[in-house]
């Protein structure tokens, strides 16, 4: 076990933003931390990286607490903060050089290292340009590059793909995957995008309101839903009344309206279709499309919290 938290708690003004969290990361693993905005992901990361002290509990690195000896984790950690933390007035190259210097990378290898990282984030051609002229995606790539100069054994990325173009996003996902697969770097990847975590991470922790509500591999998490079905229906017309009536059907656990029809989670096995048709028709509407979906992590989250990730 590389990193382990024990009943980790952080409170601001008496409110537990991180609430007795237990989790671990093995060396070489790629772990996802998934949760909606405000779940407490960034705070958790700040405590693990020794930037802020926990209110209670402990963070251990190879079994030793880092609270008293933060130097141990700082040496092997590369952190990619949620907000872009760069000098916008300087070029991509100058930024990387600065972070290389404060990380005390030997001068003899620094130049080569910078070029290697610029290649990795796909900005070698534009290294002389000022960061403030970059697009959001390019800034995020430099932001990641700045955490890699000292070749950290573990990299923590805090929502590195928020608000950027798909191309940059793919580039970032590939970079992270490469770091993990080829260099054996341990990854803790935070996001509120389900797909990214599904793609990158072997193991996932789902966090909500400061607590870890579920954890495990993707299959393990999906098994949580083994007793439920997710059904999508389309109606020729919808209203809040119809949604309410559907909610009242006995086997229905959850109803909400998505971009693509009405989503219903119900107990497995019950033949819900006839009750659905009955309910909808009694409201003067008609079902135009009906399908049972394979559940996703998103559905797991919905099941656990009653909220969608993007609430």
């Amino acid at each position, binding site marked *: 076990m590389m990193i382990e938290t024990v009943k980790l708690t952080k409170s601001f003004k008496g409110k537990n933003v991180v609430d007795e969290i237990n989790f671990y990361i093995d060396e070489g693993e790629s772990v996802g931390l998934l949760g909606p905005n405000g779940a407490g992901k960034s705070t958790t990361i700040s405590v693990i*990286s020794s930037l802020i002290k926990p209110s209670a509990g402990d963070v251990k690195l190879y079994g030793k607490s880092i609270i008293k000896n933060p*130097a141990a984790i700082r040496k092997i950690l590369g952190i990619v*903060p949620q907000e872009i933390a760069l*000098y916008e007035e300087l070029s991509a190259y100058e930024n990387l050089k600065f972070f290389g210097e404060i990380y005390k990378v030997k001068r003899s290898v620094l130049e080569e290292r910078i070029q290697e990282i610029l290649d990795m984030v796909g900005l070698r051609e534009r290294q002389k340009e*000022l960061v403030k002229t970059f697009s959001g995606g390019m800034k995020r790539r430099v932001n990641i590059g700045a955490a890699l100069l000292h070749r950290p054994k573990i990299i923590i990325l805090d929502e590195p793909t928020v608000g950027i173009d798909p191309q940059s996003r793919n580039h970032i996902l590939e970079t992270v995957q490469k770091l993990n697969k080829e260099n054996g770097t341990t990854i803790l990847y935070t996001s509120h995008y389900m797909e990214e975590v599904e793609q990158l991470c072997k193991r996932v922790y789902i966090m909500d309101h400061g607590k870890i509500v579920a954890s495990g591999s993707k299959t393990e998490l999906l098994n949580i839903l083994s007793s439920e079905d997710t059904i999508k229906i389309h109606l020729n017309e919808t209203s809040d009344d119809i949604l309410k009536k559907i909610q009242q059907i006995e086997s229905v656990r959850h109803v909400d309206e998505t971009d693509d029809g009405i989503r219903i989670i119900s107990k497995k096995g019950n033949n819900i279709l006839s009750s659905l048709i009955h309910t909808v028709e009694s409201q003067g509407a008609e079902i135009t499309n009906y399908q049972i979906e394979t559940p996703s992590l998103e559905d797991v989250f919905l099941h656990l919290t009653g909220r969608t990730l993007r609430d």
Partner: protein
Amino acid sequence: MFAVFKTQIRKELRSPWALILLLVGSIVLTLIFANIDQDTSTTVPIFSTEEKKEEVLNKWEPLLNKNSNFNFVVEEDTAARKLVEEGEHTAVLQLFEHDYRLITNSSMPAVQMLEDYVHMLFTTEAQLQAAAGNNNVAALRAEVESYLQEAPLQIQTEALDGGEVPDYNMGLQLLFGFTLFMAMFTIGFQVNAVSADRANGVWDRMILSPISKTAMYTGHLCYSFFIGFLQVGLVFLIFRYILHYDLGGHLGMILFVAAIFSLSMVSVAMLFTGFIKTPEQFQVIYSSVIPIIPVISGVYMPPGTLSNPILLFIADLFPLQHAMNSLMDIALYGAGWDDIALQIAFMLLIGVICMGVGINLIERRNN
């Protein structure tokens, strides 16, 4: 530490305009407001319409020009009047045998001073005339003058170095004042980079890197000091060697005081940073507070004008007052190290206290 220092410099060189503006600003302000060039004493045309014109002018012209800041030159009657009418001179002096008339188009203090001077001269002359009766006025004047040299009651004035007391030089005061004033801005804006780093997240990244907190602060503060001192030093050197101003003989000491002042101002700016949350607020608050300091420190006024004890006390809390006193003492009175030691000590004390409190406030806000 060196990485932090270097990177701040690199950032500054990217957009050095604020710095250049403040540097040029100190020079321009001084040139505009401090008419420091003592050679250009005011010229006052004199003329006479008396019959014995030559005689009258020959009598008064040397008397007027004797120990005076004004330069009286003889003009033709009509030409002289024209000079005032067209505004080329603010005043001309019409002379009679025992009287004068000042023709002026202004009520500026300078004209008042001219009037006072001429009035005094004519009164003295009239008294001498009366005392001498029909005897030789010139002989009596010489007698009076030599008596005054050895008068039974004498006021002794002595400069710090024991030499003659020079006239107070307001221009020099403004030169120092504006330069230090502008440097206060420069230093403040540089120190504000600490807040900027904290706001943009670079600070947190540095905390998680192997460099120490001390190195982070030292890098930033050394840089701010360096830029502030560079600005003051450059302005002084430009005035001394390019514009040939007389800054007294001890340029080394002047630069030393400038360095201590910059150091102490870095700390004051740090204290501001401790109280203020965001770099934007800093810009606003700092820029509104700083201009008050030279006013209460009496930079724009002759010494001794300010007497409100509260203002004097507040002024003492800022390094500007102490730096100004030391600089004037050095440049004007040739003060030595002993004479300015107390002022230097004050500035260092301010520096240590502000730095301590400032950093403490910043660190406390972190948790």
